[in-house]
Structures are given as C-alpha cells and as structure tokens.
C-alpha cells in the first residue's frame, strides 16, 4: 500500500502569491495513497528539507512529491535528501508549480486548480515509481588515441603525464603527422620541427605510452569505460628490436617510390623511414614496391643488414586491448588533385600545392630549403599563390572554408620573399580570413613589409605556354581580367577529411558530415565529445583547424578523458530501458532505432520448445535512457525506468475530471 507524502512549497511569494498553497495541500491530502500533505515557505531550505526527512520517517512514506519549482532545478537536491532520509532517491517526483504555473498565470483560481491537477498526476506517477539503484560500470584506466599527428601526440602527452596509460595508433611508419611536414608556422614563423619533434620524443619515451606505428584500428566493441579494440600491426618486415637504425638497407635498396612525406617531389626507397626525425627512427618495408615481395628476388637489404633485422616472413599481427576512453585524432588530407584540372594541378610540374611548398622551404626538405621550379630547378622570380582551391567552391562540391589557407598562404608568400629577395609574389584571394591572435597583423606584414600583392578574385585557368605558366583570373577590385606570367604557381589546396575517416567513424559509432568530418555532440557546448560516450575528438578530424586550435582541442579531449577515468566506477543514472523477455518477439526494431547500439541479442530458451531463440537485451552501461525503443516495441516488451509505461499511463489517467476551486476559476 502506497504511502505518499506531498510537500507544497511557497517559494516565498513566488508560488504562494498566485497559488493558494493551503488549498493545494488540503486537496492533495484527499488523493488516494496520500498519507501526509503539508505546505511550507521554502522546501529546499534546510528546515524545509528537515521537514521532509522527518515526515518520511514519521509517516513511513513510500513516495514523495514536492510541489515546487522545476525538477530541472531541484530534483537532484530532493533525490539526495530522500536518499539520506532512508528512502530510495528515485521515489521522489516534483510537481512544477512555479515555472509552469505561478510564474506564467495570473488568475489565482486557475493557477491553483492547475497546481492541484499537476500534483495529482505526479502523485499517481510516484505511486508507481520503483526503487532504482545507480548503475555502476567499472572503468578501464587506459586510453586509446587514434592518429599520431600533433592532435594525437598532444592528447597522448597530456594523458600520460596525468598518469594514464595511453596507446597511440598511427597508420604511417612514424608519428608527427602533417605538422612534421611544415617548415615554419604562422603567425610566429617558428620552425615546426623544432617545436614538434621534442614532443614526439617525449611521448615516445614516456613509460606509460605505447605507440603502434604502421598500424590501424581493426574494430572497436564495448562501451564507455569498457571498450575492446583490435589493433592491426601491419608487417614492418624489420625487427625493430634488432635494428640499429644504421640506414645501410635504405642506402642500398634499389627500388624507388615517390615519397609521401615529401609530397612526391623526390623518391624514397621501398625500405624507408619517412623522414630523418621520424619516431620510431627505424625503417619498414613497403611490400607493394619491394622487389623481393613483388618479384621474389633482390634481398639486398637482408644481405647488407649487419644486425640481421630484416624479416621477410614477418606478418600482420592483431593485438587486442581494453581501454576506457578513445580520442580520435585522425587529422585531414588535401583535396584530390584531379579536382582542379583547369589549374593544371597534377599535370603541370610547376603547379604545386601548399604542402609541396612547405617541403621545399624546409631545410631538411628535398631541396635543402631552396625554393625552385620542380621542372628545371631554377629559382622562380614570380610566384602566384591561389587561395580557396577546393574551399568555398560549391561547383566543386567543397562549400566550406578550410580555415588555414589564408594564413599559410600569407606565410608562404613571406617565406618566399625572405628567400628570394627580388622575387614577386601575387596572391589571388576571395576574402582574407585572419581571425586569430596575431593573424591579421601577420597578413598585414606580408603586404606592408614583404610587398606581397593581393589580388581579389578567382583564377579561371592556369596554363603553360613556351615554358612559362600563365595565370588567368579576375581582379574584381579593378574589374579587369588579368593574366600573370608565373614561374611557379602554389595552390592553397583545401582541407578534406582523412582517407578512411568514414569507415573509422562507423567502427566507433560516431556521426560524420557529408564531407567525412566527425560530428561533435554539440557544436558549441560539447565540441570535443561525440554522441558515443567515451569517444572524444581532437583536431582536424572534426573540422579544418590550425595548430593552436588543434592543440587546445587535444588538451580539452584529454581532460575529458581524465575526468572520465578519474573514478574507479562510472556512476550512471539508472533511468535506462529494460526488456521483458517473455514479451519480446525478437523483431529487433529497438536495435535499429537506438542511436547508441544499446540493445543486444542474447540467446534464450523458448519456454515451449526449449530451443534457443534470440531476445533483445539492453546494455545498461550503454543505454542513455531516451526511450526511442519504446514506441517501436509493439508488444511493449521494452520499458524505461523512471518514465515507465505504467508511470506515463497513470499520469495521463489522472487527467480525468478537471478540478475546480469553489467560487474561483470558473
């Protein structure tokens, strides 16, 4: 037999001024199941809370309804209170007679009637509340970082230095990512390698860090606090324990391949280390281009290796790890070359992209830092930079802004002028977007000090004639079509999502937009979380970003992970869905509408035949309690704790015959 206590709050005059609280309490005392009903000035105040706690004991209440403000305001307060008073914290409900009543109505009669009816609904509900225990999920205090660029490295460093064991998976043979390819960085022009490589080394040498390079994430199962990840270590064909990184094998390898790291400006060998400062600094064999693996002969590297580290029989290995949280930091790629045939991108040798230019400027790059024409090695006297190549261009299906091009183009033009003092630099732009600390000043410097010429307009065509390039475009400020002879053309190629991002997103059950960028849980308030609890985003995999933003997001993601892993157990509200297996008809509609993958299939014996059939089971560790699975469950086998069918029904049921306050409200 239910013993409900009703506590009506005046909230000073906030409620009492418009609602006749005495009448409300009086009416409530006659509701079925109500054994105690009182009003008080401030229920949330200390004396107010005492009053409730005492009533719970004195009247052996089995349920409590507080008629006061919005549950979004004080539900936690009163749950804590009844919990302390020895009642299950989920046996309390709040009737919102302030925000939804006294503050929005003037007529005392109407407001009072509404309060009473609302209260009655919640009394009916609370009578059907069941005591619930918080769900406690064990937490594996280990993190996985996917991607070894600056975002991944930063997140990894923050995690290990906070004492969290961290596994980093990088698909290329070295960590460092795109930032390692850059020469100097805007707006300070400090050397990218100089600030990055120390971090790479620090992370790789940290005792709590495990790095997988030349590896990929095969699969991810489990849920927040308890993910199981399978990592595929691609065969390196070189025993990194034995290898002394002497480099003899690389030197002697006869097979040449265009270098990815140097953007194909030069070749690398089939056995290679992407770049001198690579971490690890030991080589892998690219089997696709290795003569031994393609033709079955050669074997030079094996012969010359003094440490006998070459292992042709090496094979892919799949390691399984348990982690509590995942940081996705897979970065970005540049738009495909074929997209801009009219600029000769990929056709004309002296039309290069931003990263190629970076490699050229880099002292450790293929030209030793000299800016030259790929075609003939001459120093270009005129360089034209074209912005928004693959950004803000609807007709190419790339409507978004890549955010970094305006700044790196300004930087490129400066680096060029600093190296070629008598050179001319032109920049075609749509708008210059320099919203960042010191950015606008930086662009200004390019114009004022380095005399870079900015031309506002799009380029229609880049073509080659008699060995020179011509850039044909419009100068919309002067209103003229212009054609510029150029020795070198640098395209500010736009940013697109990393190759394979969508596949990864699906493995992680994370959303992504039509360009393949991962979707954050909320664009403003939850920018590093995803809708999959325990999976966080860092860097350009979420949207184009520059280094400062990437690093801050990586830090933010790391701190979210730390917050998550700080407790031994994850405490989750028990307001989750549950399946009545006897009613479940195994249609698994729940499975298809659940955005979290909470419903699972479990084998159960059929009562009649004794054969095993699959039934739905909701993993309480994963369920977020939205209830989307209920309306699609026709036999109503699915129910939602805290908003159960029974509770909903009784609230609706309590609607019948309106309450009228005598003499008022009519």
């Amino acid at each position, binding site marked *: 037999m239910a013993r409900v206590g009703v506590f009506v709050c005046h909230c000073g005059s906030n409620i009492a001024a418009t609602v006749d609280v005495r009448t409300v309490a009086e009416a409530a005392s006659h509701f079925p199941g109500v054994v105690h009903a009182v009003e008080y000035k401030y229920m949330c105040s200390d004396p107010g809370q005492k009053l409730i706690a005492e009533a719970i004991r004195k009247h052996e209440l089995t349920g409590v309804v507080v008629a006061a403000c919005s549950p979004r305001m004080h539900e936690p307060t009163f749950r804590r209170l009844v919990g302390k008073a020895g009642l299950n914290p989920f046996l309390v409900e709040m009737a919102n007679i302030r925000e939804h009543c006294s503050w929005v109505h003037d007529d005392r009669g109407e407001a009072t009637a509404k309060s009473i009816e609302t209260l009655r609904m919640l009394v009916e509900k609370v009578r059907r509340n069941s005591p619930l225990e918080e769900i406690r999920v064990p937490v594996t205090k280990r993190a996985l970082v996917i991607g070894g660029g600056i975002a991944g490295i930063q997140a990894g460093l923050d995690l290990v230095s906070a004492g969290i064991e961290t596994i980093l998976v990088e698909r290329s043979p070295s960590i460092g990512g795109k930032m390692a390819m850059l020469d100097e960085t805007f707006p300070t022009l400090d050397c990218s390698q100089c600030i990055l490589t120390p971090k790479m080394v620090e992370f790789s040498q940290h005792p709590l860090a495990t790095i997988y390079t030349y590896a990929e994430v095969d699969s991810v199962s489990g849920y927040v606090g308890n993910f199981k990840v399978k990592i595929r270590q691609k065969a390196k064909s070189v025993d990194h324990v034995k290898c002394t990184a002497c480099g003899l094998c690389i030197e002697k390898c006869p097979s040449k391949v265009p270098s990815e790291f140097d953007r194909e400006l030069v070749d690398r060998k089939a056995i290679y280390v992407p770049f001198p400062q690579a971490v690890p600094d030991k080589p892998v064999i690219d089997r696709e281009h290795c003569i031994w693996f393609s033709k079955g002969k050669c074997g030079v590297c094996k012969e010359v290796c003094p440490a006998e580290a070459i292992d042709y029989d090496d094979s892919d290995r799949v390691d399984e790890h348990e982690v509590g949280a995942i940081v996705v930091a897979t970065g970005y790629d540049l738009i495909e070359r074929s997209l*801009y*045939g*009219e600029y000769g991108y990929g056709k004309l040798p002296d039309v290069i992209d931003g990263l190629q230019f970076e490699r050229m400027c880099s002292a450790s790059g293929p030209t030793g830092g000299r800016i030259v024409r790929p075609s003939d090695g001459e120093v270009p006297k005129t360089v034209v930079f074209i912005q928004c190549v693959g950004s803000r261009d609807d007709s190419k299906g790339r409507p978004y802004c890549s955010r970094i091009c305006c700044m790196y183009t300004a930087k490129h033009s400066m680096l060029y002028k600093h190296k070629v003092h008598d050179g001319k630099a032109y920049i075609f732009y749509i708008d210059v977007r320099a919203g960042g600390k010191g950015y606008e000043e930086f662009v200004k410097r390019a114009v004022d000090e380095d005399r870079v010429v900015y031309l506002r307009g799009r380029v229609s065509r880049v073509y080659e004639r008699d060995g020179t390039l*011509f850039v044909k475009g419009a100068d919309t400020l002067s209103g003229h079509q212009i054609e510029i002879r150029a020795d070198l053309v640098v395209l500010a190629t736009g940013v697109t999502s990393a190759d394979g991002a969508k596949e990864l997103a699906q493995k992680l059950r994370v959303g992504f937009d039509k360009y393949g960028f991962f979707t954050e849980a909320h664009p403003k308030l939850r920018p590093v979380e995803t809708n999959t609890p325990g999976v966080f985003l860092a860097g350009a995999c979420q949207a184009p970003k520059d280094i400062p933003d990437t690093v801050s997001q990586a830090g933010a993601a790391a701190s979210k992970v730390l917050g998550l892993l700080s407790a031994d157990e994850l405490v989750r509200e028990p307001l989750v869905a549950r399946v009545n297996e006897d009613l479940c008809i195994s249609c698994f509609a729940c499975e298809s509408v659940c955005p979290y993958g909470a419903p699972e299939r479990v084998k159960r014996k059929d009562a009649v035949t004794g054969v095993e059939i699959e039934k739905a089971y909701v993993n309480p560790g994963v369920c977020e309690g939205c209830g989307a699975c209920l309306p699609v469950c026709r036999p109503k086998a699915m129910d939602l704790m805290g908003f159960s069918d029974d509770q909903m029904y009784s609230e609706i049921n309590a609607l019948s015959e309106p309450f009228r306050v005598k003499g008022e409200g009519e």
Partner: protein
Amino acid sequence: MKYAFYPGCSLDSSAREYRESTEIVAGDLGIEMEEIPEWICCGSTPAHMASKLLSVTLPAYNLVRARAMGVDGVVAPCASCYSRLKTANYRIAQSDDLKDKVERALGEPYEGDVPVYHVLEVLAMALDEGRLEGKLQTNLAGLKVAGYYGCLLVRPPEITGFDDAEDPQFLDRVTRAIGAEPVEWRHKVECCGAALAFTQTDVVLKLSGEILEDAQYSGAHVISVACPLCHSNLDLRQRDIEKYTGINLEIPVLYVTELLGLALGHSAGELGLKKHSINPIPALKRAGVKV
C-alpha cells in the same frame, strides 16, 4: 532509351551538316531519336532578355510535346537550346509560383521533369554502353583535336550538371574513343562571343580569335564543337578574325558528330564537311586521315 529530338532553328539553316551528321551517327550507334512534331523556338537569348516567364514557357512547350511522345528524354544538339530547355526545367522545379504561371500559359500541368540531354551526353552514354565497338572504319590515329565546349554546355553547373564546369571531359572522351588524340588547351570553355556576333562583332572577333589561336598553338589539326553558334563564330568568321588579329589561322572546325561520322567510315560528302568555310580536308590529310 528512346529520345525526342529537338533540332532548334540553326540545324535547318546554318548548321545543316550538324543535323545530317547527327542523324547518321545516331543511326549507326542505334540511338533512337524522333523529332518533336511542331516544335517551336527555345527562346534563345532574346526571350530571357524580354521576359522570364516567356523564356521558361517556350522551352516548356516543347518539353510537354516531347512528353506526349512517351520518350525517355529530349536531345538537343545546340548548346543554347540545351541550356534553355534545362534552365526551364530547373526554374519550374524551383518555384511553384512560376510553375503555376507556366502551366496556365501551357494550359496543362508540367513538373519540369522531362530529362534533357545534349547530343554529347547521349554519345558519351552510347560509348559507355560499348555501342562503338567493332564499328570504327577509318583510322584517326594522329589526328589532334581541340575539343571546344564553349560556355552554355557546361554553365551554370547547378543547371547543366555537366561533368566539370571548368575542365569538362565529354568531348575528349569521344575523341579518344574514335582513336584521335585530344590536346591539352586552355580555351575549352571560354566564351566565343556567341550572339554578340550581330551586335558587337569585334568582341566576337577578339574572343573567338583567342580560342582559334590557342587551338592552333596547342598543335591541334582541327577543333571539334558541339554547338552551331560556336561553329559559325569559329568557322564562318575565321577570315575576318585573321584580318582583325593579324594572325593567319587555318584551323578547320568540325562538329563532334562529323568526326565520329568519319571514324564510322562515312564520306566527307555525306557528313557535309564541304559545307564549312574552312575546308577541313587538307588538315585531315595532313594528319594522315584518309578522306
């Protein structure tokens, strides 16, 4: 696929050879086309200068007639017609208000849903279906072709939806398919001056001049086009252009269908090659094509 054929005015006047070669080629490749009975003007440039409603209603009228023929789509050989027909569909689909007006003018409903193709697209589809296989008679190897698209075929992209507004490939694909060699050149989608020919001839002379000059520079033996107006500007006016620019040009301009016809073994006569003001025969011979 069965198509309704919308020739447009020039195909019965200045561009007869385009019509003839198109019909010949279509026949050979088994592309079913039937002319829209009593088709009317597409409105071309004047209509949309005068009235938006008119510029949409005229093409719509023709599309509705095509619909009555129960075909899979309409084929237009002229870039301008193509553009007008497609634009009409686009606008009707975009605005209910306009749709109502047009339907009132037509006296029957039209959703803007009759597909419109340019001859080039239909040819490319035929190639993809391998309809050319085993049909090539004349060897065109060594013939360098500058494929010229002009503007209306490819622009605006949201309306024409051609493969790539800035660097289209259809013509080049056809050229390759018939064994000839498409050249890399920069003017494939530049404007030829189009209708300004009648009002500001010098503009046409300048623009078309640049196109011809670049084609010649690129080493092309011939230019292939898919639009009567482009053709007359580049071919008919080539002499005036020489005078105007002072560059000697001798670069024949052929309809893509004519080149295809040659490859399929038809004679210069059948294909109306002799109708051009710049005789293509010498250039073709130079390239080692037997004609």
